[in-house]
């Protein structure tokens, strides 16, 4: 096929994708005032997305914290006193590791489950059935998931930050021989509230991205079981990529503009 045809087709698909996503975002935003009318569904989704992800977040955070302590000790050895392990763990967990890794693991779990659920509803005509009984699928399916994920991701991240620091403290104590007191002193040494707040601000966007990607690719499902598989894969890939890209953009915004270091 001629390269221009391929390029044209690619651009056409890209425009279509952005347009479709834009329409979904617009319609969800318009429906935000209906959140309270759908409170029950929102709580249900908060339970599934948030509470349901706790075991996964627990394991991820504890081990991420643990490995951060080990790596810090390895790099500090001979150059930097170990009392700074707490400092570097606290900074890296609250600024990046907690928010991003929580978003990535929860994103995988949640966007896949949303895409598979809505995708199956789409191919079995349940989405059309909703339309036919005059229920807006965006209000019934998208709104509760997007609101719930946007609220729950920051909550999960706070939980994850604490667990990761706890994991690091335990490992620093047991295998590196840094006492809890020394670890805590290091942690408090350069801790700034804006690190925690800045890290959490990003997670609202991550939660929104996760639910939106799941819903969008769910609605775009074509065909049968294979289509649901493709949609699920696309949702996970898209949410992970968008989390990483938006993380960079948001970090630039938050830490270079909003909380810009005073010179």
């Amino acid at each position, binding site marked *: 096929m001629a390269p221009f045809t391929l390029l044209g087709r690619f651009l056409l698909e890209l425009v279509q994708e952005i347009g479709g996503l834009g329409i979904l975002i617009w319609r969800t935003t318009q429906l935000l005032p209906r959140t309270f009318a759908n409170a029950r569904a929102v709580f249900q989704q908060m339970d599934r997305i948030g509470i349901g992800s706790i075991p996964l977040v627990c394991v991820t955070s504890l081990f991420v914290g643990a490995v951060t302590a080990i790596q810090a000790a390895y790099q500090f050895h001979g150059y930097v006193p170990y009392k700074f392990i707490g400092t570097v763990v606290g900074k890296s967990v609250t600024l990046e590791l907690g928010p991003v890794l929580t978003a990535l693991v929860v994103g995988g779990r949640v966007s896949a489950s949303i895409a598979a659920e809505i995708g199956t*509803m789409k191919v079995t005509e*349940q989405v059309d*059935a909703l339309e*036919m*009984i005059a229920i807006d699928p965006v209000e019934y399916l998208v709104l509760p998931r997007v609101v719930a994920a946007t609220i729950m991701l920051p909550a999960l991240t706070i939980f994850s930050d604490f667990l990761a620091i706890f994991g690091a403290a335990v490992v620093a104590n047991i295998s590196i021989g840094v006492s809890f007191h020394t670890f805590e002193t290091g942690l408090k040494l350069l801790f700034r509230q804006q690190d925690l707040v800045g890290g959490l601000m990003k997670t609202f966007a991550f939660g929104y991205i996760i639910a939106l990607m799941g819903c969008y690719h769910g609605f775009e499902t074509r065909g049968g079981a294979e289509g649901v598989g493709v949609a699920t894969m696309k949702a996970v890939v898209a949410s992970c990529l968008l989390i990483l890209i938006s993380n960079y953009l948001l970090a630039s915004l938050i830490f270079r503009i909003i909380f810009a270091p005073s010179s």
Partner: protein
Amino acid sequence: MERGTGKHIVRLSGVAKAFERKPVLTGVDLDIARGETLVVIGRSGCGKSVLLKHITGLIAPDAGEIFFEEEDITRFSRKKLFQMRMHFGMLFQGGALFDSLTVGENVALPLRRHTTLGEDEICRRVCGRLELVGLTDVYNRYPAEMSGGMKKRVGLARAVVMDPAIVLYDEPTTGLDPIMADVINGLIRDLQRELKITSVVVTHDMKSAYRVADRIAMLYEGKIVHSGTPEEVRETANPVLRQFVEGSAQGPITPV
């Protein structure tokens, strides 16, 4: 939107639709009279379901007009479409029950979302509709625990729970054993008689078509090629219709 009194409840004029440049409908003209049962026949994949989805505004046509109560629905806003659909009921091919809800919740959903009725009244109406389709003691069961025929009957109960003016049936007998198919056909007739509704059935099952139809229309190559009473269809000289009705491999329609 008030229920009208005109002769035709739905009119389609020059409706055309293509998917990825492949034409499916190429100019459908079809009038649906108030209170009649119209059966649209045609081969699998000829665009019958697509036609039904045009009538309900689930798919927008590339060209042509679709009127419901003399209003062009292709110009409707989403809000107006939803208002219009309150007068519609639709039975989907696989039932399309919401599998996260019980049978009772499925049938009650339209009432819960669109009326201010109390729980007792909703329960009474839901049970009434379930009885109408011959189901009792299924209120708390989940769709996954039911057979295809039962799912379709629940789908039918859900389609008529809001007292629609018009009910659309997408392949109501496909995938059912002959006895269950006859039960569904009987229900389509009974519902039309008892609730005075207009029915549009798309099917390729000729036995079902003869059993329920006041009028039969054939969709072929994206157009309505013939429309008439079941008797006229039986006696037809139209070669396309004749071949389809007789189920013959020989004729103008090439088996693909």
